[in-house]
C-alpha cells in the first residue's frame, strides 16, 4: 500500500472515529461498536445542518431510497433509553402506553435507485435491550472495502421518531442531526455536535448542548441543576423555571426570556447575554461576558443588591440604588461601575464585562 492511500485510510478512520467520539466529548457514554463492515465514503455521514424534521436535501440527478421500520421495547418507569445517531434527526415525545416505540427511517441518496438501495443496506440500526435499558445505535460501515466504491455526494441519514412512557429517562446524542423533544416529563438530556437541540414542555431536563447548533428550550420546568451550552450556536430559553441553571457559550448569544431561576450563572466570551425575568428572594445571578453586551430586564417588584462592572463598556441602571458605591447608584447615568441596593436587597446581581455594555432595566 502506498503512502497516499494509507494516509487517506487513516484520515477516514480518524474522521469516523472522531465524529463518533465528539459525542463522548460532550460527556456521552455512547460507545460505538468497532466497525466490522467495510467503510464506504459514499455513506460518510457528513455533518449537515438541518432543522428538525427536514430530510436529506434533493440534488439534481440524484434519487432517494427510504426504508421505514418500527420496534417496540418494554421499559419500566425507571428505565433508560439511550439513542445515538450520526446523521439524521432524533424526535422524542412521551406516550401514554407502557412500551417505548422507535420508528426508524433510513434514507439514502445516490445517482441511481440501485446505488441508493445498496447504500441503504450498508447503514444498519442496532437496538440492544438490556435489563431496563435500551440502546439504539446507527452503524456506518468502516474499513477497506468501502473505499473501493468511492462515490461522492452520497449520503445516508437515519431519523428516529421515539415515543417513551412517562418515567423513562432518555439520553439522545447526535452528530449531524437535530434533537427535538416535546412533552417529555421524565429525565432528558440531549447533545448534538452540529445539529440544533429543541426542547418544549419538558419536565426533568438535565442538559442540552451543541457545538455549532442552536439550543432552544421553551415552556419547561426543571426541578434540578441544568446545564445548557453551545460553542458558536445561540442559546434561547423562554418560559423556563429552574432551580439552578448554568448557561455557557463562546461566540453564541444567550437569551433568557421569562426565566425564573434563583441560581443563574451565564458566561460568554463574545456573545451577548439577555436576561428577562423575576428575581426571587435570595436569588443569585452571575452574568459575565468579555465583549458581548449584558442586558437584564427585571420583572415584578424586585429587591436586589447589584455589582455591575465593565472595563471599557458602559453600565446603566434604571433603578435608583441606595448605598451606592463607585457608580453611586444614580439612575440614568453612563458609568463603568454600578453598585448598590434596590428594595430589600434580597437577591444579588453580579454583572461583569470587559468591553461590552451592561444595562439593567425594569420590565
Amino acid at each position, binding site marked *: 500500500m502506498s503512502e497516499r492511500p494509507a494516509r487517506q485510510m487513516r484520515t477516514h478512520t480518524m474522521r469516523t472515529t472522531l465524529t463518533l*467520539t465528539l459525542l463522548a466529548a460532550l460527556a456521552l457514554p455512547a460507545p460505538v461498536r468497532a466497525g466490522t463492515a467495510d467503510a464506504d465514503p459514499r455513506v460518510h455521514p457528513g455533518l449537515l445542518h438541518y432543522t428538525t424534521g427536514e430530510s436529506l436535501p434533493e440534488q439534481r440527478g440524484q434519487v432517494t431510497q427510504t426504508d421505514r421500520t418500527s420496534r417496540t421495547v418494554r421499559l419500566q418507569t425507571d428505565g433508560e433509553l439511550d439513542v445515538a445517531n450520526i446523521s439524521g434527526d432524533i424526535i422524542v415525545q412521551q406516550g401514554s402506553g407502557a412500551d417505548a416505540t422507535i420508528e426508524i427511517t433510513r434514507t439514502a441518496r445516490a445517482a441511481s435507485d440501485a446505488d441508493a438501495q445498496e447504500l441503504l443496506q450498508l447503514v444498519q440500526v442496532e437496538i440492544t435491550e438490556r435489563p431496563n435499558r435500551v440502546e439504539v445505535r446507527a452503524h456506518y460501515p468502516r474499513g477497506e472495502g468501502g473505499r473501493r466504491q468511492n462515490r461522492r455526494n452520497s449520503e445516508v441519514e437515519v431519523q428516529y421518531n421515539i415515543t417513551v412512557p412517562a418515567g423513562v429517562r432518555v439520553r439522545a446524542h447526535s452528530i449531524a442531526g437535530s434533537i427535538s423533544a416535546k412533552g417529555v416529563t421524565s429525565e432528558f438530556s440531549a447533545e448534538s455536535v452540529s445539529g440544533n437541540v429543541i426542547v418544549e414542555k419538558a419536565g426533568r431536563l438535565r442538559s442540552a448542548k451543541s457545538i455549532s447548533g442552536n439550543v432552544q428550550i421553551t415552556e419547561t420546568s426543571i426541578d434540578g441543576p441544568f446545564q445548557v451550552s453551545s460553542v458558536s450556536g445561540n442559546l434561547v430559553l423562554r418560559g423556563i423555571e429552574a432551580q439552578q441553571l448554568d448557561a455557557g457559550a463562546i461566540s453564541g448569544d444567550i437569551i433568557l426570556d421569562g426565566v425564573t431561576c434563583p441560581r443563574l450563572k451565564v458566561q460568554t*466570551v463574545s456573545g451577548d447575554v439577555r436576561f428577562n425575568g423575576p428575581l426571587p428572594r435570595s436569588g443569585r445571578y452571575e452574568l459575565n461576558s468579555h465583549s458581548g453586551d449584558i442586558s437584564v430586564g427585571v420583572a415584578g417588584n424586585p429587591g436586589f443588591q447589584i455589582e455591575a462592572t465593565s472595563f471599557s463598556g458602559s453600565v446603566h441602571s434604571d433603578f435608583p440604588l441606595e448605598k451606592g458605591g463607585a457608580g453611586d447608584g444614580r439612575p440614568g447615568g453612563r458609568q463603568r461601575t454600578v453598585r448598590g441596593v434596590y428594595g430589600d436587597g434580597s437577591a444579588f446581581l453580579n454583572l461583569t464585562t470587559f468591553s461590552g455594555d451592561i444595562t439593567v432595566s425594569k420590565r
Partner: protein
Amino acid sequence: MKACERYLNAINELVDGTLGPLRRTELELHLEGCEGCSALAAELQPIRDTARSLDTMPAPPRAWAAIEARLRAEGRVAARPLGIRARPYAALALAAALVLAVGASLFVVTSRNPAPAPVTTVGDGNGNGNAEPVHPVQSVESEMALTEKHFQNVVERADQVLDPATAAVLQKNLLVMNQALEESRKVLEADPQNLPARQSFYETLRQKIEFLQTTIALMNQMRQGDAAGAAEIVEGGKS
C-alpha cells in the same frame, strides 16, 4: 500480576495528573501490553472526571485568611506579590496542568519524543508549603502555554480529522478566546487589580480549559482508533 502491583500507584498518579514524565513513559509502555492495568486506568478516569465535575464548595473568605495567616506564621508561604485573589488562578493552573498531564499521557507512547512533564503549582519542591510562590496570572499562563503547545495543533489541524465546518467552528472560537485573553492580559499587565479584566481573564481561561479538555477527549478516542495518526497531528506533523 506481581509485576502489575508496582504500577498501581503510578496509575493513580497518572489519573491525578501528577505522574512525572519518566515514570509515565514506563507506565504507558506497560499499559500498552497489559489489559488489566489498562482497564483499571480507564475505570479510574471517569471517576476523576466525575469528581472534577462536582460543584465546588467555596470556603468563607475568613477561612482562607486564617489558613494564610497560619502558613505565614509558620514561614511556609511567601508574601503575595499582588493583591489578586490567588485561589481562582491556582485552581486554573491546576486544571491546566491536568489538561496537560492527561494530554501528555495520551501521546507519549506514540511519540518518539516524550511529552514534557506537567508543571503544577502545588509546592515549590523545597518543602515550602503549597501556596503559589509566583504571580498567579503568570503561573496559570505558563501552564496554559505548555498546554497549548500540545493542543493548539490539534485544533488548527482539526479539519484533517473533523468535518470542515465543525473544525472551522473550533478554530474560530479558539481565536475568539485567545483575543479575549490578550485584551484582558494587556490590562492586567498595567493594572493587576482591575476587576473586570481579572474576571474576564479568569472566566475565559476557564472556558478555554474546558474547550481544550473537550479536544483532548476527542483525541483520547482517536488514540484508540489510530494512535499514530493522532500523535502526528498533535505534534504538528505532516499533513
